[in-house]
């Protein structure tokens, strides 16, 4: 392990052995691993998806490398969304933690995890969110951290509420936390959402159900963890994230 520092705007944190721990190609994911870009039940997809088929891109050095950033500058307390203001935010205090792995089960150390979410009433601190639920002056709803040597991330936050949206009559989003992961390579980049177990809105949400495979949908749902609760302080949910792992053969080709 080495430490390396660069000047702005890129701060590079090197906390793993680059040559030993980085694949030379990433697996091509099977059809259905991710939602389709054209998904009519989620109406906004209609004008925001390509009509032409995607062109197969051979993975080159550009795709197997990627930004290894502590950027935006990650501070020690950036993973605690409950201490960003003068007072405590309203709601159920929760600890959300888990590990980031590749599909071979290898932990991804030193990778940036960014989250954003609504407050406990289901309202985002965003000028476009105007539904009549209260804003919380003590909650902004954004956090970030870098995974540790076991690939673990941890956030302290408030359990977000569900909220209505305009997709169809009486549409509600199940409670969720947005997650962004840089991974180690351009090929591993992932933006997704973490859900909470047993949410009654699951059957009605086109975004959740855009993932057509039921076991794949389960992979977006966290589990309650009594082990990680803090007595007289916080509930806990655990959620592991799997990014693409090494391809079967270096630079494998489509058949």
């Amino acid at each position, binding site marked *: 392990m080495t430490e390396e520092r660069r000047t702005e705007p890129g701060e590079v944190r090197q906390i793993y052995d680059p040559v030993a721990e980085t694949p030379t190609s990433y697996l091509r994911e099977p059809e259905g691993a991710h939602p389709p870009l054209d998904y009519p039940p989620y109406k906004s997809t209609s004008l925001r998806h390509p009509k032409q088929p995607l062109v197969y891109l051979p993975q080159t050095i550009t795709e197997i490398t990627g930004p290894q950033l502590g950027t935006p500058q990650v501070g020690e307390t950036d993973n605690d969304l409950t201490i960003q203001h003068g007072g405590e935010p309203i709601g159920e205090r929760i600890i959300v933690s888990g590990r980031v792995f590749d599909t071979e089960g290898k932990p991804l150390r030193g990778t940036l995890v960014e989250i954003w979410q609504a407050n406990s009433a289901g309202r985002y601190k965003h000028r476009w969110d105007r539904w009549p639920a209260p804003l919380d002056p003590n909650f902004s709803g954004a956090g970030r951290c870098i995974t540790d040597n076991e690939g673990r991330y941890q956030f302290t936050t408030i359990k977000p509420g569900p909220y209505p949206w305009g997709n169809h009559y009486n549409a509600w989003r199940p409670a969720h936390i*947005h997650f962004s992961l840089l991974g180690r390579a351009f090929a591993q980049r992932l933006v997704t959402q973490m859900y909470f177990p047993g949410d009654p809105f699951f059957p009605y949400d086109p975004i959740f159900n855009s993932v057509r495979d039921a076991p794949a949908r389960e992979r977006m749902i966290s589990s309650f963890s009594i082990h990680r609760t803090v007595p007289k302080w916080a509930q806990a949910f655990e959620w592991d994230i799997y990014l693409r792992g090494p391809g079967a053969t270096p630079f494998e080709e489509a058949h």
Partner: protein
Amino acid sequence: MIFDTTPSQTVGPYFAIGLPFELGPFAVPEGTPGAIHISGTIYDGAGVPIPDFLLETWQADPEGKFADMHGYGGASELGGFRGFARYGVEDGDGTFDIVTVKPGPVAAPPILAGAVQAPHIDISVFARGMLHRCVTRIYFADEAEANAADPALARVPVERRATLLAEPHNGGYRFDIRFQGPHETVFFAV
């Protein structure tokens, strides 16, 4: 493969709470010799500029080296070079603008017979209404010879290649992205 990947979901309308940051659009520090602007407009299927999107770029430096520790070809020695830019906007006019340096040619992997890749920048676009990122590449219109020998461009139907070419503009380049229509940009499966 032992485990399946976590599925993608949309960034939604409120990513600006968490993702854009002040120096995000700068792949190089301001004032870096040779720094240029690459800008353009992103259009939806009705030809209307998309007001809310997150665009990320990843590229080599002018020597064809990355700001990355993987060691393939050696890391960039250009001072402060990040090679990564993030431009996020929540209610804009559809345009993006990043500050970077023009990348150099990049070595290609052995399966591509060691061909040299033309200068290029990988792009991810995220937005409400996109359940997964859309990936494209910027190539440069003034690199005709290198483009003609590029192993990735070779897979793109000839009549669609122009959608991947950034045109010189105000000392930098202009690159528009169109999601549908007769000039739909080529998007890639990585």
